């Protein structure tokens, strides 16, 4: 539906309605004025006849048009004079009255004097006819001007909508891949907010796209390392001369595939997290989540001879996105288990701390030097000398989920200054 056409039709209809209204009002006003005038005439005529001493109006100096009827009755009620042929109008009481005779409406004025009664009458439709003619004269110019108005409205509305047409044109002509802002020339205040909102949206889109591009580039880059390791092990396998060398190369291949698989898995987790920051939060029982993940990772801990211990578990429910929270807890515990040397221990705790729920994962591994505690949250950052297993994404995932939940992540020394203690604080509902 075109705004221009809509406005044209609406404005013309409004104009027509106004014209008809004005004509109607005119018609009523004119008819009232005409009635008053006619009544005055009838009365004056009757009075002037009453003042005449002459017996018949034939001699009287009252001009009688076709439209007027005069009837005179004597004191005994006998019609002594009628100004036209045909049936007489009945005698009425004094004053104005209406009479219907032979299908015609008559307006009558009756004047009773001591010796006679004088009646002057005129057809009623004569008056309405005049009023209608006047009303039509009011309406006609309006009706006649409608095409002109229509043309003007068409032009003016078109002019007014021009900024919109221009923006539409600018958008249509754009390179579909371009996310550059639209030109913000001086614009009517009704259109300016739309353009600036559109530009803000484009900016957000561009930012998101850039982020995605960077992520893809980083991911491809990161995949090169495990691929390189695989390629080398494959070459070693091809040139292996003994059973030992073959076995070493196959072990290397297996480790490389595992590492690549883990990296891909982490990349997928990260990619899935992206749009979920705005997902609808639901209540999540942290104590249940912690137990669940600990059970999941128990085999890994056992394989590495690391003891996984739940030292304290209070009940706490937060609002959040279950998948993201699962990834957060899993990465925390997984990291702790992987970086803890054989025979070490990973302690998990969940407790209420005022309005917050604190998840604490503590290990007896090498810890993270204070200087690196900010950078470890960067994507693909690995500590110097860290094992090749790490994808460099674990803590980045933790940070991203925490941020989406308004939670804080704190890195500190483990018990007795050894190992790493990660504390994540959530707001409890």
């Amino acid at each position, binding site marked *: 539906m075109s705004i221009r056409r809509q406005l044209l039709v609406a404005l013309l209809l409004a104009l027509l309605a106004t014209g008809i209204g004005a004509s109607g009002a005119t018609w009523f006003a004119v008819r009232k004025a005409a009635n008053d005038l006619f009544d005055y005439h009838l009365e004056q005529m009757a009075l002037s006849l009453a003042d005449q001493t002459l017996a018949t109006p034939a001699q009287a100096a009252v001009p009688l048009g076709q439209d007027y009827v005069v009837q005179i009755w004597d004191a005994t009620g006998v019609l002594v004079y009628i100004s036209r042929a045909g049936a007489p109008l009945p005698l009425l009481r004094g004053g104005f009255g209406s009479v219907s005779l032979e299908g015609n409406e008559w307006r009558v004025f009756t004047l009773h004097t001591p010796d006679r009664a004088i009646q002057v009458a005129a057809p009623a439709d004569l008056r309405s006819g005049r009023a209608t003619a006047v009303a039509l004269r009011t309406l006609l110019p309006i009706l006649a001007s409608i095409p002109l108005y229509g043309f003007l409205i068409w032009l003016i509305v078109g002019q007014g909508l021009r900024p919109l047409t221009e923006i539409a044109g600018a958008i249509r002509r754009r390179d579909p891949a371009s996310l550059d802002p639209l030109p913000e020339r001086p614009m009517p205040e009704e259109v300016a907010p739309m353009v600036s909102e559109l530009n803000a949206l484009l900016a957000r889109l561009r930012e998101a796209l850039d982020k995605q591009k960077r992520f893809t580039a980083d991911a491809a*880059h990161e995949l*090169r390392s495990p691929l390189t390791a695989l*390629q080398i092990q494959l070459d070693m396998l091809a040139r292996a001369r003994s059973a030992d060398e073959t076995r070493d190369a196959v072990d290397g291949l297996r480790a490389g595939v595992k590492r690549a698989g883990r990296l891909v898995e982490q990349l997928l987790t990260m990619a899935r997290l992206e749009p979920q920051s705005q997902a609808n939060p639901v209540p999540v029982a942290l104590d249940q989540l912690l137990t669940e993940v600990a059970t999941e990772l128990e085999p890994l801990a056992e394989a590495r001879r690391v003891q996984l211990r739940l030292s304290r578990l209070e009940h706490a429910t937060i609002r959040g996105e279950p998948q993201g929270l699962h990834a957060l807890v899993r990465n925390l515990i997984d990291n702790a288990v992987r970086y803890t040397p054989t025979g070490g221990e990973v302690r998990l705790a969940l407790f209420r701390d005022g309005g917050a729920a604190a998840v604490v994962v503590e290990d007896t591994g090498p810890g993270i030097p204070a200087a690196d505690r900010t950078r470890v949250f960067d994507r693909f950052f690995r500590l110097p000398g860290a094992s090749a297993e790490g994808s460099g994404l674990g803590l980045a995932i933790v940070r991203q989920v925490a941020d989406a939940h308004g939670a804080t992540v704190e890195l500190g020394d483990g018990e007795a200054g050894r190992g790493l203690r990660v504390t994540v604080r959530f707001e409890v509902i």
Partner: protein
Amino acid sequence: MRLLLVEDDVMIGAGVRAGLRQDGYVVDWVHDGVAAEAALDTEQGYALVLLDLGLPRKDGLALLESLRRRRNRVPVLVITARDAVNDRVRGLDLGADDYLVKPFELHELAARIRAVLRRHAGRAEPLVEFGEFRLDPSARKVFYQGRAVSVSGREFSLLQALLDRPGQTLSRAQLEERLYGWGEEIASNAVEVHVHNLRRKLGERAIRTVRGFGYVIGEAEAACRSGASSS
């Protein structure tokens, strides 16, 4: 021939080292830029440096830059995941001799190492030829007086070191540096044993002893100066 491998990725580093060892190279492996710098400062015997760029503590490019600023001319082969043309141009402009993008195959790495070493020695042809000697580094074969001679890995490396710049005398310490990596047990007479074995296969006059300084192939030109300055 001794190489310094600078690579922070444990899996890649271990693989490259194992592969190059099979090719007869002695490989010292460090995991970060600072350790690489320390190794290059203390050891003189590296024939080539394999340098990853994304290194902890000190970036590979920064390391390369400071290396060249200090006029260290050791050949550098960059191995990296950074494949943008700008990165490659920058690496080469900072003084890298070649650039290999990950992932790569071991035999390509080996071929590039040989090519860099060849260019560094001022040769264009793949074979090392001098006098009666002909060495094929890619096949690790030695020909002497027109016949193939079977030699061990270390023996080949020793010949290669002496033929790198014929006429230059190398001391026992210099040869040990080029033949053995860190942590390798070296018998005090190891070099003498290798020389002895080579002479047995090639003839007494193939390698000459410069008394008090070391060993040389060909005429010992400026032997005293070179021997004195490097000890």
